[in-house]
């Protein structure tokens, strides 16, 4: 299971962020998904890049290797990377090791917290909460092989696919389960 993020369609409305907050009743400070806004160019030739990011549920998760207490695992059915908060000691090494900074720290629980790909929803055949609410149809989830063969709703999604957007970490590092289309 992986993400497909079409930058053409992202409008930085942060519906995905709020959808995620709502699904898990996350307290202020815990942000499992975030939209990053990057400004480029000089007036009047200016561009804005929007990137909605969360855990990429990597094939070779560096967070998993970084965890000293084996609290992080890769689940077999969907390949979701999960933190077991009962084991987590809140040392933040996973956040540092993650090229995307996906794990966040929950101050109240003193534990690390991270996107679960809404595995409870995947098991019920539902898309993750962020995908379900995405206003611009920028975010999608599915089998990576389906994304690569463009088995996504026509017209809403545009090619060509790429492994990374400018500024995104080299995919070779952790082999993230995500594909992109760059804003034209």
């Amino acid at each position, binding site marked *: 299971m992986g993400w497909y993020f079409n930058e053409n369609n992202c409008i930085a409305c942060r519906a995905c962020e709020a959808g995620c907050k709502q699904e898990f009743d996350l307290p202020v400070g815990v942000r499992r998904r975030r939209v990053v806004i990057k400004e480029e160019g000089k007036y009047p030739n200016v561009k*804005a890049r929007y990137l909605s990011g969360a855990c990429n549920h990597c094939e070779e998760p560096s967070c998993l*290797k970084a965890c000293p207490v084996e609290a992080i695992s890769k689940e077999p059915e969907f390949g979701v990377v999960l933190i077991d908060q009962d084991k987590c000691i809140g040392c933040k*090494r996973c956040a540092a090791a993650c090229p995307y900074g996906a794990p966040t720290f929950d101050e109240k629980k003193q534990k690390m917290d991270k996107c679960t790909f809404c595995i409870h929803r995947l098991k019920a055949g539902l898309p993750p909460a962020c995908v379900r609410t995405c206003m611009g149809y920028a975010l999608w989830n599915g089998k990576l092989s389906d994304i690569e063969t463009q088995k996504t709703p026509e017209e809403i999604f545009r090619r060509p696919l790429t492994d990374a957007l400018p500024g995104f970490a080299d995919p070779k590092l952790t082999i993230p389960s995500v594909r992109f289309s760059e804003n034209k």
Partner: protein
Amino acid sequence: MSEERYITKEEKSLFEEITGKQFTRRSFLKWSTALAGAAVASGLLWDDKLGFFKEASAQEKMAGKGKWVYTTCQMCGGGTGIKVHVVDGMVVKIEPNEYNPIGVANISMDYSRVKTLGGRMCAKGNSGTRALYDPDRLKKPMKRIGPKGSGRWKAISWEEALDDVAKNLLRIRNTYGPESLFWCTEDSSFTDMQSDFNLLYGSPNFSMHSNTCDVARKASFKLVMGDDRPLADFANTKYALVFGWNLLAATKWAHLPGIWNLGRAKGAKMVYVDPFFNQTAAKADEWVPIRPGTDGAFALALGHEIVKNKWYEDEFIKNYSVGFDKYAELVKDKTPEWAEKITSVPAKTTRRIAKELASTKPAAVDVWSGPGHHTNATDGGRAIAMLPALLGQYDKPGTMISRQAMGGKRRALNVNKPKALRVDGLGTKYPFAHVSGIYTETRDAMLSGNPYQLRAGVFMFQNFVMSVPNTKKNIEALKKLEYMVVLDTMMSETAELADIVIPGSHYLERWEVNVNWVTFPATAIRQPAVKSVINGMTEQEFILALAQKMGLKDKDGKTLPAAYPDYISDQLKNGPIGKTLDEVLALPGAVFIGGETHYEKYKEKGFATPTKKIEFYSEQMAKKGLNPLPDYVEPVYKPTPEFPLYLINYKQAEHTHSRTFDNDWLMEMKPDNPLLMNSATAARFGLKDGDAVWIESPYARAKGTIQVTERIHPEVVALHHGYGHWGFGKIARGALNKVNQWCPAGTNDGQFLAGVSEKTSGMAVHKEIGVKVTKA
């Protein structure tokens, strides 16, 4: 300024130590703030001391339990369809309702196709539970015991509150006459019943939120083509030219991003005109930066090119319009060079866009509140609305389409028309004003007593102080009211000045009919998902009880019905839908769909103007002493040597009006509203990103912070609207903001304004003033 951060050395070395891999790039983007400086410091957790917020509970624990209730959102007035998961009487999740076209598409064909992807909703809709269970919500009616604004209140019972309001409104009517009551309301909320209440009471002064929203746009389109709110078909257009409407983020309707992206994906060219590069500019093919309030001049120059080169649709103009020759005469000297001096848009850009627009069909040309909040808004809007008229681009696929709606029909009350005229000049001083009234005139009448003194005010879900231009005057005016009632879910800057404050309901607690803003008939029901969280009355129940207590009746002895659901059920049955409330509720998603999108309706019925044609020349305006042609008029409140920068406001997807600012999830995303300033301008004034400043206009001086950006015209600075609260909940007052200590709640944009309305439509002028900015 970008909201990005790059990996630190420590992170890099830890990563390399753990994985044994080397970074192939020097640095890369990291989106978490877990370790670096957070925009909002983590650690501030939900405050549950008021005791009605639910325990944090992930959805996985809830699967299969409870029920789903289909209803509509009201985090803004858009009315997105939602379905609400309720477990043990608590709302645990709100999701989009794909049956409701508002979250899907505005054309029936697209709706049928795209709804299989599920409806969509915004960040505000996803944060609805935080408003429902906000611990700062009012729980009991409160009566003021200290001087106005002293903040000294005592809780009273609902019965006492009803007695107090009934007694005072009757006293005011008997002492001063019914016209001395001013009543205002949010306008997607039970306005039917409130209007009936005012008819029975006898006051003409019933006003609604629209006046502070889009009534100049309404007047512009209505005067030109007879429909006060045509809807753009972005999904099927080939060319969109949009003036001052951040439709992708100031999301009026949740389908807008989807249909815009669909149009783009199918190869349409999108051109966006605005002084500020917002999300819509970012997702357009071209951004045209323009001086605020000069859009009309740009539109006239486009018209000049189209007429000069004979690119217009001759047949359409001949058959369906009047006054083209006079318009052609008007634009004869409105050259791109003439416009460049006014707008700062290069003449060659204007020429190219005119050619593209005229040669790419279908085209959708739209305008909203950017140009619409200026003193020349209706004329500018008319010049814009005439562009699609020149090209025959109305009511066809991919153009501006007139909506067909089916709603309820209210039974008329048998009452005399109020003897007094409205206090705000609706229909007189402002001949083409919308039914929503003119707030600034009402406010000025409170201050001056002319044409008569208003004595009582009822404010329903309207934060008048923060929403009407010129905050200081608003406060002074409200202090003059002898008796003031506020109904709202929270305390506010307006409620602070009231004599009595009645707790309002959240949209998940009450009934409503939403006639959807899509091109085909679609009507949705808002129904309670839960019982009142505060164990209170809804506003609807309160007003009905009030009318009963006051003994309000029409000449036939008819009064308001005992229950609001009966009232709307009767309207639905009595109107074109012809179904009872229960019958509509039983439809999929509790949405009635009454047909498909129809095009070129004007071929049968004509346009809804006095001549039944598109009016390039408006005889009805001439009769009222207004310019019948859309000539360019300079904005009144331009920058001066003392106040050298244009100040405008803007909106983004995280907030609505001035009312979502106590929502912790939304405030976490956007905790304050720094003043956006172009880097060249900042350099000129010796300012840098993050500087604490004073912002000053002839009407106010207040704190702000600077955000340096390339995304704004160098002569313009901009504030996001709605921030700067002092009388709202603690989050709105800046409790989450651990970074900006200078002005943690942000800056209220309305205080800097003159506080006037546009002369034709009565639109409140929100975006027209000069300011100076100095380092604090």
